[in-house]
């Protein structure tokens, strides 16, 4: 960013399933407090938005789980976001306030896919299409969105809708 634009972004936006691409993107900006970090989860798999403290797959983190600690089913049109847990670093960033986590629905992700395809000729994977959907809402001038994958793999799904 500094080499190309000689400035840092106002906001960095990434989709969050398990959280790996998002934490990779956020990692470069954690110590830049003026850079907003925004993670976007699938509305049906909002581990950080709707989860509770639980232990899944070796991590104690924010998980979609019931009162007994039993893990609940997540849903997302995109496989990469369809996960009831999330990496614990994101839970820590949420709790400290350093990063904010919002959601996007299947429909919003599909709409964002179409919008990027039509305006830029880029097919995003449905996972980062969630990030794009919320990036459009942000009150910021210069936004870095992580396009974590290509949408070739999602064409069949997109065309069905």
């Amino acid at each position, binding site marked *: 960013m500094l080499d190309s634009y000689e400035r840092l972004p106002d906001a960095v936006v990434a989709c969050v399933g398990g959280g790996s691409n998002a934490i990779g993107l956020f990692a470069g900006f954690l110590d830049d407090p003026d850079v907003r970090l925004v993670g976007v989860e699938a509305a049906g798999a909002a581990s950080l938005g709707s989860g509770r403290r*639980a232990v899944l*797959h070796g991590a104690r983190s924010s998980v979609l789980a019931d009162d*007994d*600690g*039993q*893990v609940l089913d997540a849903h997302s049109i995109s496989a990469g976001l369809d996960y009831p847990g999330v990496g614990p670093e994101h839970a820590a960033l949420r709790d400290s306030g350093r990063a904010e986590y919002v959601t996007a629905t299947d429909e919003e992700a599909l709409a964002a896919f179409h919008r990027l395809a039509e305006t830029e000729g880029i097919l995003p994977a449905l996972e980062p299409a969630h990030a794009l959907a919320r990036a459009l809402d942000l009150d910021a001038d210069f936004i870095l969105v992580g396009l974590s994958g290509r949408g070739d793999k999602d064409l069949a799904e997109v065309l069905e809708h």
Partner: protein
Amino acid sequence: MAGAETPELARAAEAGGADIIEIGFPFSDPLADGAVIRRAAERALAQGMRTAQCLECLRSVAAQVALPLIPMTYASLLEAYGWQRFAADARSAGATSLIVADLPVDVQPELRRVQLVAPTSTDDRIALAAESTDGWLYLVTVAGTTGARAELSPALAPLVERTRALTDTPLYAGFGISTPEQAAAAGELTEGVVVGSAALLAAEEGAAALERFVAQLRVALT
């Protein structure tokens, strides 16, 4: 696995000659478990066996069986229930100790439990586990999940050797021990064996079948 049939099955296991009974408290995502125990957990969860019901089951078993009882479960249940609250309530329901399959040795050190080590454990981790384990050390025979296997794991002997060099704590081998022959072979190396999936499979045929199976294991271990 905790459920409606568990007290009868526990009595059968006791009659067959078991020394200790592990009672599974089912979890939605049992990473350490293969198909047999996973299916049993799914059935138990479908029956409504949540933590409170499992503790009631434990209480009922403790009233009918004289053996030490050890709930085996996953960290998420304790996180939700409260770690010390779970330990206290399990104990007052009749638990002698606990096994928490996905809880590393250095997390929640105050929670008294049977620790697990595996062929992938380093000597340092084995020493730490042996130091803090409650009564005996659970040697997981494979870098894998529970479930019947054709042969006793070749990784057990080297794990036992390494562990003996580090501690005098009694060692029990478990995972993949399915037949009396495998139990005998494991029993040559350790103080005891843990049989899970194979016992559950026998139990699917009824309490009498389980009692016969446990009796065969008992004979093989003498």
